[in-house]
C-alpha cells in the first residue's frame, strides 16, 4: 500500500490555499473599492440642477431645504433635498436661507465645508461625538444633527437654527443642554459657520437609512405621517 500522506495534513496544500484565498479576497476588495469610489464621488452643482441623486451631494445643498423621509421603494429613510414631489422624491427646488443667503456658489460652498471638516478634525469632535455613527459615545451623534428637533425648538429665539448652532459652538457651556457639557474649544465665528455648513451638508449624505426612524414619534415606524 502506498503510504502517501493526506492532503489535509499537508503544509504545502494549506500554504497554497492561504495564498489563493488571500489573493482572491484582496482582488475582490480592490474591484469593489473602485466601484464604491465612483459611487461615492461628491456631486456637483450641475447634478443638483439636473436633479441627479448622488450619495454624497454637492456642497451647494446648503442652499436648499433638506429633509429625511421614508422611501417606500428602498424601504428606509433617504435625504430629501429641495422639497418632495408627489412620489416622495427630491425636487431640488425649495431653497432655504443659510446665514441669510441661498445663492452660495459651488466654490464658496466647497470652501465652507473644507474649513468645516478641518475644524471638525482640529477640535477632535470624533473623540466625544459620532459622525456617520463612528467615533466616541460621550455625546450625541452628529450624522443628522442639522435635522435634529432640538434645533427646531431653539431656532426662533436665534433667528434660525444655523445661528443657534453657530452661537452654541462658539461658547457651548453658556448654552449647555445637558449636565454633560461640551467644553469651550475656542471655535471662532468663521469656524462655527463652516462647521454648521458641514453638518448641513452631512445631513444630505445618503446613509442607507441610518439612523433608522430618525426623529419619528416614540415607538412607531414612520409615525410622522
Amino acid at each position, binding site marked *: 500500500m502506498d503510504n502517501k500522506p493526506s492532503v489535509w495534513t499537508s503544509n504545502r496544500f494549506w500554504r497554497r490555499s*492561504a495564498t489563493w484565498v488571500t489573493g482572491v479576497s484582496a482582488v475582490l476588495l480592490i474591484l469593489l473599492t473602485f466601484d464604491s469610489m465612483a459611487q461615492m464621488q461628491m456631486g456637483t452643482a450641475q447634478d443638483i440642477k439636473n436633479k441627479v441623486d448622488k*450619495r454624497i451631494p454637492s456642497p451647494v445643498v446648503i442652499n436648499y431645504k433638506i429633509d429625511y423621509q421614508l422611501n417606500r421603494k428602498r424601504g428606509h429613510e433617504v435625504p430629501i433635498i429641495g422639497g418632495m414631489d408627489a412620489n416622495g422624491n427630491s425636487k431640488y427646488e425649495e431653497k432655504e436661507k443659510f446665514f441669510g443667503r441661498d445663492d452660495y456658489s459651488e466654490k464658496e460652498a466647497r470652501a465652507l*465645508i473644507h474649513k468645516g471638516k*478641518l475644524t471638525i478634525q482640529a477640535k477632535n469632535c*470624533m*473623540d466625544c461625538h459620532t459622525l456617520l455613527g463612528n467615533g*466616541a459615545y460621550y455625546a*450625541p451623534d452628529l450624522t443628522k444633527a442639522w435635522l*435634529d428637533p432640538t434645533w427646531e425648538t431653539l431656532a426662533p429665539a436665534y433667528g434660525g437654527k444655523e445661528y443657534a448652532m453657530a452661537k452654541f459652538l462658539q461658547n457651548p457651556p453658556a448654552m449647555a443642554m445637558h449636565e454633560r457639557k461640551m467644553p469651550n474649544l*475656542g471655535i471662532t465665528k468663521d469656524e462655527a459657520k463652516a462647521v454648521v455648513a458641514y453638518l448641513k451638508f452631512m445631513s444630505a449624505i445618503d446613509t442607507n437609512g441610518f439612523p433608522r426612524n430618525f426623529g419619528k414619534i416614540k415607538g412607531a415606524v414612520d409615525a410622522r405621517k
Partner: protein
Amino acid sequence: MQGNNGQLYEGQKLALKYFTVAIVLFGAQLLFGLIAAIQFLYPGFLFNTLDFSIARIVHINALVVWLLYAMIGAVYWLLPDEAGREVVGVKLGNLAFYVLTAAVAVVVLVYLFIQVGPGNEMTTWLITEGREYIEAPRWADIGIVVVVLIFLYNVYATVMSGKKTGILAVLMADLIALAGLYLAGMFYTDNISVDQFWWWWVVHLWVEATWEVYVAAVGGYILIKTLNANRKVVEMWLWIEVAMMFGSGILGLGHHYFWIGTPEYWWEIGALFSALEPVPLVGLFVHVLYDWGKERGKGNTIKNVPAFAWLTVETFGNFLGAGVWGFMHTLPQINLYTHGTQWPAAHGHLAFFGAYVAIMIAAIYLGVQGKAGLKELKMTKAGWWAITLITVGVLLMTVSLTLSAYVQTMVERGMYGGTWEGYFVAQANQWFVQGLGWRLATGLMVIAGYVFLVYDLLTCTKKQPAEVYEASGAAAAA
C-alpha cells in the same frame, strides 16, 4: 531561547526595550481610560482641564501604540531565535527605537497640553488629525513609516540570511501588509464618506486581518516554546488560520460600510464575511486546547506557565470578544440600531483584550524568562492575581457595557429614532447609569491587576522554586 553561550541576542535585548515601553504605555492606557470612565458618571471631573475627548485620545492611542510596541518587540524576540542568527541592522533598530519613543512622547505631550488647534491644515500636520485611532499629526505619521521601514528591513534581511521557518514566512508577508495599510489613512479629503472608507482600511484591516494573522504566528511560536509543540502541526494550523482570517477578514471590512454613504451591496458582503470571522477564532481555540491535552500526558512540563496561561486567556478572550460579541451586532439588520452606541464599546474592550493584550503579555513573559535565562518559569502568587484580576475585570466590564448598550439601543434608537433627546434620555436611564458604574468598578479591578502584573514582571524570576534554578544552572554549565 538564547544565542550561543547562554547570552541573549542583541535583537532580543532590543525586544526587551520595546516590551518595557509597551508596559508603561499600557499603564497610561488604563489611567486615561479610568479618567474617561469617571467622566461618564461625573461630567464635571477635570472639565476644561482634561476633557473627555483628550482622555479618550490618550486612552485609545496608548492602546494602539503599546500593542504595536509589544508586537515589534515580540518579533525582535523571536526573530533571531527562529532564524538562528543575530538580527541584521540591530544598531539601526536601536536608533529607530529611540526615535519612535521620543516621537511618541512629543505627540502625547501635545495631546495633553495643546489639545486642539485652529481649523486649518497646520493643525493636521502639527497637533492632531482628529480621526479616531489615527489622531497622530502627519509629521508623526511620516516618522512612523520610516521607523516601520527600518523594522521591515531588519526582519527581511535577517530572515533572508538565516533559517526560513513557516512562522517567519507568515510574519514577513503579514508585516508588509500591516505597514502598507497605514498609508491608506494618511491623506485629507473633504468627503467624509471617502475619508471613513479609507480610514477603515487602516483600522479594520489592521485589527481584523493583519493583527489577527500576526497573533496566530506569535501564538504558534509561544506554543512551540511553552509546550514543545510539534512545529509541523503548528505551522499547518498557522496556514489554515491565515486562509480563514484573510478569507473572512478582508471582505469582512464590509460590516463598516453599511451606513457611511457607501453602496448597499456592502450589506450582503459585510454580513456574510463578518459572520465568517469568528470561524478561525474557534479554530485557534480548539487548536490550543488540543495541543495542550496532547502534549500534557508526555511528562512534558509547561516551560513558561504565565505565558501559557495568558495564551489560554487569549484564545477564550479572542473567541468571546471578537467572535461572539462582534457577531452579536454585526448583521446589518441589528447594526442599524446598535451602530454608534455602547455596543461597539462593549465588543471593543473584550476583543482588544482577548485578541491582543493577553497574547502580548504572554510574549512579554517569554522575554522575562529569557532575560533571566531560566529553563522554566512557574506562576507566582502575584502573577496569578494579575491574570485573574485583569481577565475577570475586563469580562465584567464587557458585561456592564453590554447592559448599558442594551438600554441605549432600546431607548435611544428604538423609542426615539436616534434623536438627541433620545440620546440624553437613554444616557440618564438608571440601568444605563448602573452599567457605567459597574464599568468604573471593574476598571479599578483591572488597574489593581495591572499593579500586580508590573510587580510580577519585575520580580517573578527571583521567586522561582529551587529546581528551576538548578536546571538553568546546569544548562549554563553545559
